[in-house]
């Protein structure tokens, strides 16, 4: 079924009886051409682009829970292409272009809203860094504007400009940045993949990876063995557990990242604002809740919930940046399990096992990357060669010294 405004009206006139499920719920077959482990944003987009770009439709996505039950529904929904480093810059630029055509592509409303993202500068040095980053973005073909203090004041008058501790010097505006409805991205890709013949198999946990003489043969699951010549692992925070089934250790440590949402408020923050001093970012959802987050709790964790010191830190950053937020009530908070790589950049690569591919290490930036990650992973799985914009996301780059430390904090597990 194709969704349209006309369809909504006609269905409304006839009691909404014509809407069917958005995807089938098939039982697993004994064999597929390719298997995707992980039915989240990256897994579903990989399946979609394998079918759409490479004509591979005899494929299955195996999800241990329900589709989109992981980090695709646990993030702060920010979409941007403001990376500096070669390797990251072209990748996220490609992703943003895919976002811009995603709703037409999928015939699905992912509520992508290019409301702009403003990063604030609080010192001369930070402003210089933002200018440099903005130039890199422009050279990449994306948009960036270095804003003066007056421009920031005009745009976001509710920020605390009077304070002496972290005075605002200006900011970098990325107008094509914004937000999207996170679940809808998973649902849109799921529906698109299903319509092209991909089997989306839920409640099907992979319990083993079958490997013979260094070649992948298939997987063992809670719903039986499934054979395939190609297997892709896209399981975010659980990457180490799945890779361990293939006898691999990954350069990844899983950490918890918390996020928060307030009760619904009238429109007040009409863009994404990033505080340059406290690793704090905020936007307002279409339902009215202020959605915000901060830094990792900074210790390895699979708990999907954080500790109070980081909650306190995030609230302090919020109050420092915009004291008005103190009047809002926090509705809930949650944590996601982040697959933190050693340098803070992702991995899309083959493994030493023939036919086994890995897409992991998305750190705290996986949401906006979902379209391009799927695009590039599909390219890699179909052709055996890395996609041009993901060619630096090598699995062995730490060992070979080709690290991509976007934050320039060092290639060490506890620093990203």
């Amino acid at each position: 079924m194709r969704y349209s405004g006309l369809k909504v009206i006609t269905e409304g006139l006839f009691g909404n009886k014509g809407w069917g499920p958005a995807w089938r719920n098939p039982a697993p077959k004994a064999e597929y051409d390719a298997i995707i482990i992980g039915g989240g944003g990256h897994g579903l987009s990989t399946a979609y682009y394998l079918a759409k770009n490479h004509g591979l439709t005899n494929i299955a996505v195996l999800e241990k829970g329900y589709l989109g039950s992981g980090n695709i529904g646990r993030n702060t929904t920010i979409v941007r292409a403001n990376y500096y480093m070669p390797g990251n810059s072209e990748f996220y630029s490609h992703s943003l272009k895919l976002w811009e055509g995603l709703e037409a592509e999928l015939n699905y409303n992912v509520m992508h809203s290019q409301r702009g993202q403003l990063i604030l500068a609080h010192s001369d040095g930070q402003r210089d860094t933002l200018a440099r980053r903005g130039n890199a973005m422009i050279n990449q073909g994306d948009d960036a504007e270095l804003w003066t203090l007056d421009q920031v004041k005009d745009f976001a008058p509710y920020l605390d400009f009077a304070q002496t501790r972290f005075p605002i010097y200006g900011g970098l505006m990325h107008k094509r940045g914004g937000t999207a409805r996170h679940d809808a991205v998973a649902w849109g890709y799921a529906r698109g993949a299903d319509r092209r013949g991909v089997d989306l198999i839920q409640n099907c946990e992979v319990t083993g990876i079958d490997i013979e003489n260094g070649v992948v043969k298939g997987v063992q699951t809670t719903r039986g063995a499934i054979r395939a010549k190609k297997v892709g692992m896209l399981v975010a925070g659980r990457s180490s557990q799945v890779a361990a089934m293939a006898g691999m250790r990954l350069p990844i440590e899983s950490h918890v990242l918390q996020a928060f949402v307030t009760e619904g408020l009238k429109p007040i923050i009409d863009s994404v604002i990033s505080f340059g001093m406290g690793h704090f970012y905020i936007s307002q959802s279409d339902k009215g809740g202020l959605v915000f987050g901060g830094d990792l709790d900074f210790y390895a964790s699979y708990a999907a919930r954080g500790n109070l010191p980081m909650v306190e830190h995030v609230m302090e950053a919020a109050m420092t940046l915009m004291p008005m937020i103190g009047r809002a009530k926090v509705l809930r908070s949650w944590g996601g399990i982040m697959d933190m790589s050693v340098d803070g950049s992702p991995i899309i690569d083959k493994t030493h096992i023939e036919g086994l591919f890995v897409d992991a290490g998305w750190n705290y930036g996986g949401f906006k990357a979902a379209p391009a990650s799927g695009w590039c992973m599909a390219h890699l799985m179909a052709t055996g060669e890395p996609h041009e914009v993901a060619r630096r996301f090598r699995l062995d780059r730490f060992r070979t010294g080709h690290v991509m430390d976007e934050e320039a904090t060092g290639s060490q597990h506890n620093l990203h």
Partner: protein
Amino acid sequence: MRIPCPLCGSRDRREFYYYGSEDYLKRPSDQGSIDDLDNQLFLRDNPAGVTRDVWYHEAGCGAWMVVTRNTVSHEVLGSELVAKKKGA
């Protein structure tokens, strides 16, 4: 989360700096290979369950310790001084 320091007793997590997996203490010998370095610095088991990682009592006594804890429940099971470990 509270961390038991072998010298100071149970203290607030905020007094500690998290360094990472105990793998960091497994330094390769002079004759070690690139694989050994890769395993020490980058590759990780990253267990969902009991793990052993290195913490530094930054705002306390300054001791380095290996803490045994559960990454799923956040339960802390014990700690020992790095200085008391052989070869560390």
